[in-house]
């Protein structure tokens, strides 16, 4: 499973690179938009979260950290491969955008895992949408307090999820 995850990450980084090569002639703003959209699309492919797997791992005694690590492994490999390659080939701006998008996607995956440990899929998806929207609102209106709000949110979800480990209702 680890090897296939790494292969997918390298393939995704290559696909994005090939897609970006013709875009090098674009202006900076257009290039940033293309890089951002391409990275989001590939990150979505690399970060599927299956609620049944999250719940099974919880029943089997795995903590949040381990479940999150399993789910972001592919994206982390993509981040490592893509950022270093793009830095050399396309410059620091492209690499920075890819890194920022990947970091945001990792946070989103972590949020989904934490909420899937607590709630059934339908309610969990609704809650994730609300919490992600809240974080975006804070990021837009009060960026300084974003880390505090995000940490408090994640800590609270992790604390409640810890009580669910091994639990089979």
């Amino acid at each position, binding site marked *: *499973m680890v090897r296939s995850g790494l292969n997918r990450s390298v393939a995704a980084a290559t696909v994005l690179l090939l897609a970006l090569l013709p875009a090098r002639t674009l202006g900076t703003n257009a290039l940033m938009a293309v890089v951002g959209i391409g990275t989001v699309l590939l990150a979505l492919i690399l970060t599927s979260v*299956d609620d*049944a*797997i999250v*719940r*099974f*791992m919880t*029943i*089997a*005694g*795995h903590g949040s950290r381990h479940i999150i690590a399993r789910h972001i492994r592919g994206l982390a490999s993509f981040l490592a491969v893509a950022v270093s390659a793009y830095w050399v080939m396309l410059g620091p701006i492209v690499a920075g955008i890819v890194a920022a998008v990947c970091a945001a996607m990792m946070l989103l995956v972590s949020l989904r895992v934490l909420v899937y440990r607590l709630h059934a899929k339908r309610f969990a998806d609704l809650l994730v949408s609300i919490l992600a929207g809240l974080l975006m609102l804070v990021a837009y209106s009060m960026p300084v307090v974003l880390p505090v709000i995000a940490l408090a949110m994640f800590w609270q979800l992790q604390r409640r999820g810890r009580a669910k*480990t*091994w*639990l*089979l*209702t």
Partner: protein
Amino acid sequence: MNPAVDLAGAAVERSGQHVVQDVDLTISRESWFGLISANGSGKTSLLRALAGRLPFAGGSCRVDGEELAGDRVGRALRFGFSPPADKLPDALSGCDVLELVGGSIDDVRSRLGKLHEALGLAPLLDRWIGDCSAGMRQRIAVAAAFAGGHPLVILDEPFNWLDPVAIFDLREALRDMVAGGLTLITALHDLGTLASACDAGLMLADGKVALALDEDILRAAVQSPQAFERQTIDRLRSRSAT
């Protein structure tokens, strides 16, 4: 020598209601203990609480002499437990499931020993759970209970959905493992297996102990299975009628 498990006045709640009350039981080491009852009488809740998958609402629970009634995680770490077959994720393979429970598949295979063959696991390891029949899922769930190599294992109705050959092979393998030092606790619906394979047992009715089945009773049951079946059914009927 301490018993493997000693419950006194154990109680379990589900949705705010007591589903198990005042259960006393003692399970010897290296034995097979069977739990039997009518549907909805608290077997699954009691086993899940014992395995640390539910909290106890009261009473004492000693495992290897250590009081663990208030330590759910401590109990979960002591017991191998088969997850319900319907909770296995469709998007994992049999191998993934066993690795998530017990680490590398080579380690799991060596811990399973004879059970690996008895459960016919080899063709199931690369198969997606979503493509498995109910019986195949059950085999993987049973194997998962042994994947961690625990000396205490709890199985909730392990013979459900298995074909007759698989039931026979699994029962023999489990009996061999008990002879080799395993302490096994199972919920059962089959009185024949209870009488012929278990060393001791308990009948639950309405969440309370209806009858303790010691070695002498089970030995007599093997001698006269029809009489045992009649007595057991009569007792379950009279309890459910009250």
